[in-house]
């Protein structure tokens, strides 16, 4: 028991320490805790740096023109225009840069779409305004509703660090397991998003979308609904508790024991 508590404490610290350091001024995507989220992060940074280089080049060209060719400094206008060579160059080079982005993007997308051979299947259903989780191979099903007190939302008491990010029943998942999510909705369109997993997927009434994850590190990962779903849109958070496999089996036994 105490070992577990210690481990849980250590995990909580490990999971939150890097997050709190920059939490107030977070400026970038999280790298995430799955191989897929890391790939997406790398792709994001690759495209980002290409865009930065292009942007800087464009801005320098503008700056140069603006500084060097002012009439107030006596600049006389040239009269050149139309140059086919230049125009071909600035059409072809951007195209090649785009190809350099498209190749890794395509490879990543193919991986994302391969949700085969999942070891665990979870059905996620969006409701106005909470989530339902069903473990397809176990007799487990529960609602996950927000628990942030209205006193905090109405500024009557101090907001906690997990303000608008806390739920009564978190989704419990094992690490190192390929998990397929079947995502749908009971009313309007919602979108299930945990940034640490690298994706969001729309929950659409009458349709079942799928996506998958394989979590590398135990911890608590929080997410939010990402598709406007009415007045409670900002208030249907997602909380995932990723635990080691043996702990997960204990949890399942506990749940099914209770239900049965």
């Amino acid at each position: 028991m105490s070992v577990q508590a210690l481990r849980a404490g250590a995990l909580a610290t490990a999971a939150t320490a890097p997050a709190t350091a920059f939490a107030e001024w977070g400026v970038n995507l999280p790298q995430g805790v799955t191989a897929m989220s890391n790939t997406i992060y790398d792709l994001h940074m690759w495209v980002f740096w290409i865009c930065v280089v292009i942007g800087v080049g464009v801005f320098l060209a503008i700056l140069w023109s603006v500084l060097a060719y002012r009439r107030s400094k006596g600049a006389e206008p040239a009269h050149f225009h139309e140059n086919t060579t230049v125009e071909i160059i600035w059409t072809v080079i951007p195209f090649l840069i785009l190809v350099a982005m498209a190749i890794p993007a395509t490879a990543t997308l193919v991986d994302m779409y391969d949700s085969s051979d999942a070891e665990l299947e979870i059905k996620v259903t969006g409701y106005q305004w909470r989530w339902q989780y069903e473990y397809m191979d176990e007799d487990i099903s529960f609602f996950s509703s927000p628990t942030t007190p209205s006193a905090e939302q109405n500024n009557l008491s101090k907001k906690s660090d997990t303000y608008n990010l806390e739920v009564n029943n978190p989704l419990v998942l094992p690490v190192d397991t390929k998990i397929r999510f079947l995502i749908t909705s009971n009313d309007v369109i919602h979108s299930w998003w945990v940034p640490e997993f690298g994706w969001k997927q729309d929950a659409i009434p009458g349709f079942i979308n799928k996506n998958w994850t394989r979590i590398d590190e135990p911890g608590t990962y929080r997410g939010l609904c990402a598709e406007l779903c009415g007045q409670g849109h900002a208030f249907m958070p997602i909380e995932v508790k990723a635990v080691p496999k043996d702990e997960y089996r204990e949890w399942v036994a506990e749940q099914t024991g209770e239900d049965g």
Partner: protein
Amino acid sequence: MSAVADAHAVDHDHHGPAKGIARWLFTTNHKDIGTMYLVFSFTMFLVGGAMAMLIRAELFEPGMQLIQPAFYNQMTTMHGLIMVFGAVMPAFVGLANWMIPLMVGAPDMALPRLNNWSFWLLVTGSLILVSTLFMDGGAPNFGWTFYAPLSTTYGPDSTTFFIFAIHILGISSIMGAINVIATIINMRAPGMTFMKMPMFVWTWLITAFLLIAVLPVLAGVVTMMLMDIHFGTAFFDAAGGGDPVLFQHVFWFFGHPEVYIMILPAFGVISQIIPAFSRKPLFGYTSMVYAVAAIAILSFLVWAHHMFTVGIPIAGELFFMYATMIIAVPTGVKIFNWISTMFRGSLTFETPMLFAIGFVVLFTVGGLSGVMLAIAPADFQYHDTYFVVAHFHYVLIPGAIYGIFAAVYYWLPKWSGRMYSEALGKTHFWLSFIGLNVAFFPMHFVGLAGMPRRYVDYPVQFANFNMISSIGAFLFGISQLLLVYIVYRAIRSGNKAPARPWDGAEGLEWTVPSPAPYHTFEQPPKVD
């Protein structure tokens, strides 16, 4: 034949504007109608802007301060709808009305009565849209994209009036577009071939075709909603065998070209202004025309990049990703052309030029974040976050709005016969420039860090950047009131403007006196 035309012309000399309110209600004069469009669109810009101020005030701090979530959703929805349909589109129609006849050497728009009808339908549709705010159950609250079933099964009662307003506004825009096409095709001065048309005329011609192509699609999608709500159909209702995703396909088939409808005329404005203040011809006129046409055609092939997370098959994802990325090529061509036009020119920095350079710089930022958003696997993170909000405000404000401001400063001397105060104009530019960047740049950060859009309240880790955004937004909002004063002051007491106030400006509009007489080009000019 010529005798008849001459008799007509003599008649017109004694035919000034009517007096009082009748002049504005019944006018068929393109200049009067253009003025009404511009004044009306700026009024709507302030109304939509006031809603944005309320949104940013609520988001100043986490927690619920000023408005409740239900009303907040009405504000985000109405802000978007009013800015798109009430402010940006009508402002460009106003510019088209004023400038296209002057730029092609035509006496008026080809269909003057239709022109009057277009404007008054715009007012009618906009009033219906705004009136929904005062209805039981409130205004539309489902976002300007009005996704079903939130807007159908779950929508407020006022949705029906919203649908009616969209129909009316659509008819108004289609008639405006027909008028622009008829004028440009039929009424150009002798000698003005297509490839001699000013860029603003070219971009509007292409925009008008986009409008005619996609507004009926918008009308179709809202009609399907109307059927679902009142007549028992189930186009978008999964319980009745319908498909909510179908809504998004149809909507974005309209919605993506709509984005270019709001930007292409601004491209045209910038392509007039940069050569004028660089005193150097546009670097690649021909390639600019082709680039605009290419962007317009591609705009029909990329709609599902707004839907990467709805669960479309991988082949679809790949197609829409590649098609979207390709748009960067013609857009790059335009940016490079504007810079090459400035390069080795003789530049001065009057207010229109400042807004034009601000346009090129900030539109590049929005364009590059657009390239990032096109990357489908990464969009599974970006989608529906503040990163998207930052992106489209960086293309719409420096794009559409700066384009309109640049045009207003550039052509105000022609419209009013007066010069505006250059010092005040520059102040307006710099306040807008700083306000815009302080408001919208931090949204990239909160979006990447995980804040979804359309949130009335947010986790505390996004608090700092949201407060900065709000401060920037207030600055941007307040600076726009300055424009009212600048225009008012110019008209009241500005210096008299010569026929061609900008020494580098070229085009037929500068050959008529300032202010432009009520009737111009009754005899068509000759273009070499």
